[in-house]
């Protein structure tokens, strides 16, 4: 009984620590509940899809797919093209997805093939692969676009005539998915105020008494995310999904059971890359600005950190982990700078603190996973030898 309790606590130590940190930091930051809920909802819409794209490779035993940045880059290329062609609104976003998909498939296939040559080192390899493809991406965007690949819109290009500029405004597709079904939750007074400003009839307004202020709900994005969760639940039950789980359990056994291990692993990475491509497009339609040379970098790190904070490990992750993670991670993201400022008078400290936490949490999760795996391996060996004493 005690042991079981201990296991539960140990299994959820990371989320628990974060809840504790947040419990201290939220009052320190002095933000109102309405503000926090609004920010959190926005960020759930913005980031969940990206994080969900990590689940399938974990299922296939390939660890955290640091190569998801490849998909993010594919999505960004799609967005650059629709900006150039001036396609706006929801059609623009869909077109960006359509352009990104084949690129993501090719990159995902490449990534999967490389990872098959580096079994047991998938994470560090996919991590370096992200840097490598980043070099190719920069080559493509900084030199070939506008030179070999025709770009008609001069506002996209650097003043020298080729190469895409550093920040691209995505005002044409900004919030199209978020505001597809405009919805607010508001206290009675605030709702009136909100409708006065934004015009009546354009919003689905849900009245909540005693609520101070109004909260916009990115309902369109949330529905897409919900559908995607259903897809994952369904996918797990398919033949392919079962194969992946079998490979995740034990490659050798899966292989002798007649599962095409390498092929299935490639499919897992391709799916993940394509989904990351869509995830990045959703992320950027919310942000409204594309940082051509940095956006994808952060996508990988923050998504992985959030998933781990949600209680996932390198070998096991669920949909619940995604949402717990996104909420806890971003809660800290929102409150840390302000809490840092109020605590020691410097916002910069909170800023660094949250960077430290993102990296630290990934480090701790990786260490715990490897530690546990090695201990299990050692225990298995010991039981094989029938010698309880050990060395």
């Amino acid at each position, binding site marked *: 009984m005690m042991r079981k309790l201990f296991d539960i606590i140990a299994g959820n130590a990371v989320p628990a620590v974060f809840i504790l940190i947040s419990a201290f930091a939220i009052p320190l930051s002095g933000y109102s509940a309405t503000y926090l809920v609004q920010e959190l909802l926005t960020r759930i819409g913005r980031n969940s899809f990206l994080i969900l794209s990590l689940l399938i490779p974990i299922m296939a035993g390939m660890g955290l797919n640091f190569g998801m940045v490849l998909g993010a880059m594919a999505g960004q290329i799609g967005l650059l093209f629709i900006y150039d062609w001036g396609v706006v609104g929801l059609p623009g976003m869909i077109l960006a997805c359509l352009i990104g998909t084949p690129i993501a498939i090719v990159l995902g296939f490449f990534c999967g093939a*490389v990872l098959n*040559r*580096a079994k*047991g*080192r998938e*994470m*560090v*390899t996919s*991590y*370096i*692969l992200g*840097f*490598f493809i*980043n*070099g*190719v991406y*920069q*080559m493509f965007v*900084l*030199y070939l676009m506008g030179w070999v690949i025709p770009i008609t819109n001069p506002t996209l290009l650097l003043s*020298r005539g080729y190469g895409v500029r550093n920040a691209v405004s995505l005002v044409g597709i900004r919030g199209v998915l978020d505001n597809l079904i405009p919805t607010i939750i508001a206290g009675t007074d605030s709702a009136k105020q909100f409708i006065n400003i934004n015009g009546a009839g354009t919003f689905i307004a849900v009245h909540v008494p005693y609520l101070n202020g109004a909260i916009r709900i990115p309902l369109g994005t949330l529905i897409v995310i919900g559908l995607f969760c259903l897809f994952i639940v369904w996918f797990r039950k398919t033949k392919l999904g079962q194969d992946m789980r079998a490979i995740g359990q034990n490659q050798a056994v899966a292989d002798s059971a007649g599962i095409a291990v390498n092929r299935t692993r490639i499919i897992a990475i391709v799916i993940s890359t394509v989904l990351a491509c869509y995830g990045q497009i959703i992320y950027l339609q919310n942000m409204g600005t594309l940082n051509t040379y940095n956006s994808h970098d952060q996508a990988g790190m923050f998504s992985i950190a959030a998933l781990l904070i949600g209680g996932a490990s390198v070998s096991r992750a669920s949909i619940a982990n995604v949402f717990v993670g996104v909420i806890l991670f971003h809660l800290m993201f929102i409150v840390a700078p302000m809490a840092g400022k109020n605590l*020691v008078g*410097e916002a*910069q*400290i909170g800023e*660094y*603190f949250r*960077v*430290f936490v*993102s*990296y*630290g949490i*990934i*480090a701790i999760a*990786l*260490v715990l*996973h*490897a*530690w546990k*795996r*090695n201990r299990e391996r050692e225990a298995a060996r010991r039981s094989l030898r029938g010698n309880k004493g050990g060395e």
Partner: protein
Amino acid sequence: MIKRFIQNAGWPRIIIALFLLALFIAAPFVGVRVDTSLSNTLVRFGMNGVMVLAMIPMVQAGCGLNFGLPLGIIAGLLGATLSIEWNVEILSWLVGMAGKYNISWLTQEFADTWREPIGLASAIIIAVPIAAILGWFYGKLLNRVKGDEMMIATYVGFSSVSFMCIAWLLLPYKHPTMVWGYAGRGLRTTISVEGYWLHVLNDSLAVNLGDYSSMPEWINHLYIPTGMLIFFAVMAVIVWIFMRTKTGTAMTAVGSNPEFARASGVNVDKMRTISVVLSTVLGAVGIIVYEQSFGFIQLYMGPFYMALPAVASILLGGASVNKASILNVIVGTFLFQGILTMTPSVINSYLQTDMSEVIRLIVSNGMILYALTRKVRG
């Protein structure tokens, strides 16, 4: 014979070497001086050499590529900043000690003339124990996560760098050249070492061919940072000798075949810890050598990606994930830094654009990727 050479050297290395050679040949035609380029390559070789050397112990002991180099670098940064903070105190302490123990040559005058080398030495002396302690903990950690060292090393590096970002802001440094002027506290992002130990190694015994009037025009811009190269050579020899001692041999055995090593009575975990400590200490010394040549101490996110060039260099030199030699370090650092020096100057003059960053990204990460995907035994 040629076939064997190609096999030994490996295709990527040959391609990169030929590319570098082509750049050197093309240089005069686009108006880039070969002697200047060569000097720059030599300087950068000396700057980065020790940090690449830091890869050897861990690779040999089977701990993989040290992506956690930033940990050693942090120790070096602490040594560097403390040596400036306590510059005056260190000198007066030295003179005081000399008076106490009747060391007649160590006078105030001597300390003043040799202020800069003493500063550099103090930076190293402060950094080494810090690095050893950090390395010891880091080694203990890596022993518990065998098989996943590289990924964990990466994130240990990242999290220690970001942790130090907070520390640099909060540590009670006071020296006016180092802290932010308006707040009076918190270290600056870059700190100049000018007036402390700028170019101490570069300029000692340096050869400047321009000083000799008899030199032909095409070579008289050549500058050889002899002191720095000697320093690198000394460090390399120390590592070389160490790898041949009983401990070093045991370490290599652990890297080649841990089971066999254990059966022969070698303490596997201890050897691995020693290798990590050594690697971290070399990283700390390496960054100080780098800074005295570069002229600035880069704090905060500065050390963040510093492991990647070092890792790429040693792989470019022919090392694999579990085998590395001094020759790999020398060849690799020269090739890598050569490419870094030559691509901006030559390709930019030719194409009129700066592609060096992109080439660096592709070459260095391509090289690491190549090494990671090669089939290794065990």
